[in-house]
């Protein structure tokens, strides 16, 4: 090959190499776009039958088998947003001492490295150490949807909102049933500035959640 041919080949290779770069989907997502929102409900629950609710004033931090409560600015932003959207759906916010019919608890799930979320594993611990457990005398046991739900590989952590049926606990052998769950996964979840919009998305995709 002569020198001019080398130049042609080199220039062409540079051009085609530039043209062939793969567009990495992960690099084209904003934090908002990176997140997935999953809501689940108990099929038999009649959400219009409940009138009052209360929200735990701390967030549970679930780290494996370790559970702690905290209430920093971001946690409070999520708690406030949850109260706001429950009230917008017609439910009345009352103190815990006023026997609310629904109890709501927010949890952070961190350092989860597998692609499986073992619901039973964390929520029992969470509720046991949380706001509602001790006062209602319920014991540990699997949640209403039973075994684990297969999800995806965790990159940062999750935020979960659980709604329990306090009103019908006596009729259920003092078992608190979780009748609604909202789960947020992805990038930049724990941000006070986006707590409202993230909570709103959970409610937007749960139109049945209405008094």
């Amino acid at each position, binding site marked *: 090959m002569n020198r001019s041919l080398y130049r042609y080949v080199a220039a062409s290779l540079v051009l085609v190499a530039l043209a062939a770069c793969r567009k990495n989907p992960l690099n084209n997502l904003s934090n908002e*776009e990176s997140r997935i929102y999953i809501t689940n409900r108990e099929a038999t629950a009649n959400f219009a039958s409940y009138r009052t609710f209360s929200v735990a004033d701390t967030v549970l931090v679930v780290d494996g088998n370790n559970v702690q409560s905290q209430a920093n600015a971001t946690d409070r932003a999520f708690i406030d947003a949850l109260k706001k959207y429950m009230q917008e759906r017609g439910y009345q916010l009352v103190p815990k001492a006023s026997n609310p019919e629904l109890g709501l608890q927010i949890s952070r799930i961190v350092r989860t490295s597998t692609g499986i979320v073992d619901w039973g594993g964390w929520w029992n611990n969470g509720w046991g150490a949380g706001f509602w457990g001790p006062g209602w005398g319920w014991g540990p046991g699997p949640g209403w949807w039973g075994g684990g739900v297969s999800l995806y590989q965790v990159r940062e952590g999750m935020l979960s909102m659980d709604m329990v049926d306090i009103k019908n606990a006596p009729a259920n052998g003092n078992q608190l049933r979780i009748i609604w769950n909202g789960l947020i996964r992805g990038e930049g979840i724990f941000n006070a500035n986006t707590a409202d919009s993230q909570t709103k998305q959970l409610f937007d995709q749960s139109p049945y959640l209405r008094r």
Partner: protein
Amino acid sequence: MTTQAKYWIGCLALLMSLGAAGQPLKKDVNLTLWYSYAMPSGGFKSDFIDRSSPRGIALDLMWHINTQLSMGASVAYQDFYQKYPRATYRTSDGADLSAVISHSVQTTPILFKVRYSPLEGKGPGYENMEKGQRRSLIVLPYGSLAAGGNLVQFEQLLGVFSNQSDINFAFAAHAALGAKVPFGLYRQHAVMLEAGYHLMPYNKFGVSQLNQLNIRTGILLELR
């Protein structure tokens, strides 16, 4: 071997037999580097990605069987990507999932190729000149057929989470019509322009094919 594969191999053989008739055998080797712009078609477009891809390359290494006919290998790469606005989906277990879905597909066909250029060697006085003195026509039309395998990378993401991903190898074929514009001191090189169609059966994740229209421009370099 599938019926499609047999059909394409038959076409390749037919093209080779047509071009080989009555022409002197030559040993020239040429390399073509392509830039490729591709548009999904058929089920690929309707079921998975409808956005065109400006990210494609190809490389052909061809040997002249005779003046009009050359054959060789072709390797191409095309990257397709599309992001869909956030939407809510019902999962198989009854949950509602809201996500921005991204689809990403990379196709890498590795093909045996035959190119036929009927006016090659028809320049004035061409046949009476030595190789280094030949002058071809300004524009030379050609057609090509190719068949072989296709390395496919396929991924669907929900947000940042991979939902479905797969790498496999499948059949692929390519047909194209184009023109070459020779240049160089002896017009031994050429600028190439062609339009073609990639047939790429694929039967996973509800996607039946990855067929695509290609528009390519490239440079053909005679190596010897």
